């Protein structure tokens, strides 16, 4: 079967349990099992070739430019691991079916399990380290899900997060290492990398790459000092512990070290990093395991210890050690998985995992006792079980290893570790199964259904058989795996139960005897152990993460506390700094333009403009006054435009000014009339400095610009030259607006339209909220004057408004050739209407004649758009203008231009937008029933009329 399919099957299969769970737990389990079985069969179909020494591979380009490709290969090592993963996986699936209770969502469980399985298979089949990284991180994620499977358990959630944090960080480190490695080797394909041992080990980047990769491996395989996450992962359901955290995932680190063994191993650095770490881990794990009362904790630390053992073997760097490592990987997987399952059975049956509450179970659970016993003896390294064989090989290798010049240190420590592992293994038997039967089990335990003890039974059978006939059963796979690791053919592998009185034998006798002795001294030893001060890894971890979280929270919330004024200050400071840097780092030539004369009149204008601006600042607390002063400033700006040959701008500025002020006054009516004094002196100083800086910046920049000529002639010369010929207008500004750059104007009226509908929308939502009630019975800030609609104003408006509209029309029509245009005309027309609103009141006016503001805006934009699209029918681009001259009888000829139509759109959009905005604001004050039925409050004529009517 194709490797792609083998790797993909679990992922594809992951959907089945999630769906089939509706069809029942058996269906879910069956589907999961069959998927796994299928993959296993697929794998075994490839086995013969692999055992023959071939390498099966399947390659698919995924991201060739990056070198990340879906390249898979299957060699001995891959076959071994894949076999473990799928084989044990199958047993776990069966076991879990009976282990999980009805409350547990089993579909989810099996889906996660299959995801994990797929990721794991992916790791061991990858021939591309980037691809391997993908699967690597996936195992972290899926194990996160599986550990947190029991959501209601806090230790489950915390364990999951801890495991994720540790393994993921390792994975991230590994990304760095792998990128370096691939860079050095010139490829990310493992098969290629393995060719370049010398190149890689010679590279200066070897050390960082190795360290980063090892961090990845160590975290995954729970090597000291990253071992602490594994015991907390035991909060997961026992099948998960058995599968991920003893048999497979924690072996991924070992797999990686084995994978990279040919290129990375054999250096001092490798030896001291890997061997030492392994050794320390092995001893530490063993010691801690002895003093754990929780069955699973005991097994967890024993796992840590055995992983350390294997790591050490790989670290030694000798081929024989590598072979031993491979062999022990198999053996550990068998007996440890069996032990976990038995622990699960005990937990299930006795509703406790605490050794202190157990003992004497052999009478109640003979089957479990037998299985657990054999597995534990194998773990202890007692003949004739497989654990004995690999431990012998380990001790053999340790015996010949020289650490920092000392020939004894490493063997001694190894024995010490082995001794402890004997002790805890025996304790697992003695304190749980042996001894007198107790009467205080939480519930009376009994052997479980076969479905639950058969899986471990299968593994235990392997434990025994491998122990008895290693050559027959284990040799082929071990050899081919070892070949894959060491890179030579037919590695030496001839384990025997008895091969004479070797140092290894003495060492293991010492270990067994010492172990047994130590177990008898367990009580005092425990007292001693508890007396020892030892750092609790979880406490430290929690402290670190907690501190990090608090730190980042306070960092974030201090900087992003919503103080806009600080945000703006930072923005200004940064801008000034960068701009100054840009300026200072460039060269500036001398000014090239003659300046315009300074006349008395301009000085007066300057004084007024600047004076009004400064007054605004000085008096800004009185908000109404600030608005008056803004009005002055606006007037002065408009005069400046006029003086500097920009009549169009002057017109626009002045009309915009009026509308803005009306808008602001409408808003101010509902806001506080005074701004309180609340800035500290320091704050004011800061702001003053910043503003002056900004002022100097802007002023200096524009001065420098004005006093220099264009480096190259401006494109506006073309506009001047073609405005009349091509645009049909003599007001170049207007022609630019409606023709050369009509598209800008199109966008601009849309901005206005949007502004208006936003204002409308806000009004709607505010008036639709609780605010409305408060608005309805709000009291004015100050007592109001009488005579809301004074007679004189009303009468004057009746004349002024039509005239204003007339002026608007005039401004509109002349715009193309003289200052003016649709925009200004629109504003004037709007102001004319507003005049009416101010005179007789909004409600009266709208009751007399409601204007469809939305419609006007929409029409405006659509007219402009339609005008633009008109050009399409001549096969010309959007907004291409056309104009011609009409010569009617009796009258002089006049011009017709599509630009005028476009300008009409502008006119309408502006008119509608301004009115909709003002109307929305007016609605805040509008209260039902106040609509006066008369245009003016006081009207003697009207009163007389009514009197005479009453008279008759």
């Amino acid at each position: 079967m194709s490797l792609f399919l083998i790797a993909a099957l679990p992922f594809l299969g992951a959907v089945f349990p999630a769906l089939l769970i509706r069809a029942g737990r058996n269906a879910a389990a069956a589907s999961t099992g069959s998927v796994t079985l299928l993959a296993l069969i697929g794998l075994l179909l490839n086995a013969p070739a692999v055992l023959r020494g071939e390498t099966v591979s399947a390659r698919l380009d995924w991201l060739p430019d990056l070198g990340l490709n879906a390249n898979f290969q299957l060699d001995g090592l891959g076959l071994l691991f894949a076999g473990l993963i799928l084989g044990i996986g199958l047993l776990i699936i069966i076991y879990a079916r009976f282990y999980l209770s009805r409350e547990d969502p089993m579909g989810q469980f099996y889906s996660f399990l299959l995801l994990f399985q797929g990721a794991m298979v992916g790791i061991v089949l990858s021939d591309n380290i980037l691809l391997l990284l993908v699967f690597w991180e996936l195992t972290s994620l899926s194990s996160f899900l599986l550990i947190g499977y029991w959501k209601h358990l806090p230790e489950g959630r915390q364990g999951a997060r801890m495991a994720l944090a540790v393994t993921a960080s390792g994975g991230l480190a590994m990304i760095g290492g792998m990128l370096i490695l691939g860079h050095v080797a010139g490829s990310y394909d493992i098969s290629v990398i393995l060719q370049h041992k010398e190149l890689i080990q010679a590279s200066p980047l070897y050390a960082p790459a190795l360290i980063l990769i090892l961090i990845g491996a160590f975290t995954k395989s729970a090597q000291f000092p990253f071992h602490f996450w594994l015991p907390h992962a035991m909060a997961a359901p026992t099948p998960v512990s058995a599968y991920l955290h003893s048999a497979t995932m924690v072996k991924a680190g070992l797999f990686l070290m084995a994978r990279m063994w040919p290129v990375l191993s054999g250096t001092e650095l490798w030896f001291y990093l890997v061997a030492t770490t392994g050794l320390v881990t092995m001893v530490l794990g063993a010691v801690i395991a002895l003093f754990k009362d929780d069955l699973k904790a005991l097994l967890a630390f024993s796992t840590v210890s055995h992983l350390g053992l294997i790591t050490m073997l790989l670290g030694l760097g000798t081929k024989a050690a590598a072979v031993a490592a491979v062999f022990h990987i198999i053996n550990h997987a068998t007996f440890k998985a069996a032990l976990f399952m038995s622990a699960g059975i005990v937990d299930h049956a006795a509703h406790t995992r605490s050794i202190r509450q157990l003992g004497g179970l052999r009478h109640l659970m003979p089957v479990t006792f037998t299985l657990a016993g054999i597995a534990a003896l194998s773990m202890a390294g007692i003949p004739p079980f497989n654990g004995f064989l690999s431990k012998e090989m380990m001790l053999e290798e340790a015996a010949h290893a020289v650490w920092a010049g000392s020939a004894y240190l490493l063997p001694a420590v190894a024995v010490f570790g082995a001794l402890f592992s004997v002790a805890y293994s025996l304790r697992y038997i003695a304190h749980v199964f042996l001894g007198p039967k107790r009467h205080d089990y939480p519930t009376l335990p009994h052997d479980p259904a076969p479905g639950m003890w058969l899986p471990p039974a299968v593994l235990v059978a392997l434990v025994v058989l491998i122990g008895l006939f290693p050559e027959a059963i284990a040799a082929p796979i071990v050899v081919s795996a070892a070949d894959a690791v060491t890179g030579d053919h037919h590695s030496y592998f001839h384990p025997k139960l008895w091969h004479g009185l070797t140092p290894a034998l003495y060492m293991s006798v010492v270990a067994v005897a010492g172990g047994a002795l130590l177990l008898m001294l367990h009580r005092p030893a425990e007292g001693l152990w508890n007396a020892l001060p030892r750092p609790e890894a979880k406490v430290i971890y929690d402290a670190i993460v907690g501190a990090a979280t608090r730190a980042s929270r306070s960092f974030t919330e201090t900087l992003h506390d919503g103080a806009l004024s600080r945000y703006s200050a930072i923005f200004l400071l940064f801008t000034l700094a960068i701009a100054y840097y840009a300026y200072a780092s460039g060269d500036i030539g001398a000014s090239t333009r003659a300046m315009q004369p300074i006349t008395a009149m301009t000085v007066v204008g300057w004084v007024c403009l600047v004076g009004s601006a400064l007054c605004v600042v000085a008096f800004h607390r009185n908000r109404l006054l600030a608005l008056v002063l803004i009005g002055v400033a606006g007037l002065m700006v408009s005069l400046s435009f006029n003086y500097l040959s920009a009549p169009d701008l002057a017109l626009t500025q002045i009309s915009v000014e009026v509308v803005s002020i009306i808008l602001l006054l409408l808003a101010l009516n509902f806001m506080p009339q005074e701004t309180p004094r609340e800035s500290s002196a320091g704050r004011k100083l800061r702001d003053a400095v910043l503003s002056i800086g900004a002022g100097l910046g802007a002023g200096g920049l524009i001065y420098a610009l004005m006093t220099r000529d264009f480096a190259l002639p401006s494109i506006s010369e073309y506009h001047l030259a073609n405005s009349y010929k091509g645009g049909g207008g003599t007001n170049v500004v207007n022609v630019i607006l409606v023709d050369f750059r009509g598209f800008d104007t199109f966008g601009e009226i849309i901005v206005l339209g949007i502004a208006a509908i936003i204002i409308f929308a806000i009004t709607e939502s505010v008036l639709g909220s609780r605010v409305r009630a408060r608005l309805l019975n709000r009291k004015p800030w100050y007592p109001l004057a009488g005579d809301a609609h004074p007679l004189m104003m009303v009468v004057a408006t009746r004349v002024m408004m039509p005239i204003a509209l007339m002026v608007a029309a005039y401004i509109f029509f002349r715009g193309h050739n003289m200052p003016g245009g649709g925009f200004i005309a629109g504003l004037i027309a709007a102001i004319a209407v507003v005049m009416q609103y101010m005179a007789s009141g909004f409600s009266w006016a709208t009751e007399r004649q409601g204007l469809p503001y939305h419609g006007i805006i929409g029409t405006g934009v659509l007219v402009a758009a339609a005008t633009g699209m008109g050009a399409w029918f001549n096969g010309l681009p959007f907004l291409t203008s056309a104009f011609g001259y009409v010569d009617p009888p009796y009258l002089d000829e006049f011009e017709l231009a599509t630009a005028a139509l476009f300008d009409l759109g502008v006119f309408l959009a502006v008119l509608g937008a301004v009115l909709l905005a003002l109307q929305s604001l007016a609605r805040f004050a509008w209260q039902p029933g106040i609509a006066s039925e008369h245009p003016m409050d006081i009207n003697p004529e009207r009163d007389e009329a009514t009197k005479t009517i009453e008279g008759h």
Partner: protein
Amino acid sequence: MELLLASAVGILTASGIYLILRQRSFPVIIGLSLLSYAVNLFLFATGRLALNQPPILNKYAEAAYTDPLPQALVLTAIVISFGMTAVVVMIALSAYLSARNDRIDMTDETGEDA
């Protein structure tokens, strides 16, 4: 003349910025309109200054014209900044009415976790 205009732009900018850094929404809005004056004058002046040379073509006589392009740009800018002012006024008003508070900073709340 250039000096006067530049200094005016500078002072308008400074005044505007100072108000924008205040703590209540209304002065900030006032500051924004002062700033928009400054920016409009700035943009306008990038066409260089000319007296009595409005870009209205004279069909009959050769005449000098000031640069019309910045004027068109400023017109667009004025319109847009008007729209923006309208919107910000409205939002500020609604914010004040809804929150009974016209502070521009939201530090009075525990984070901004709305």
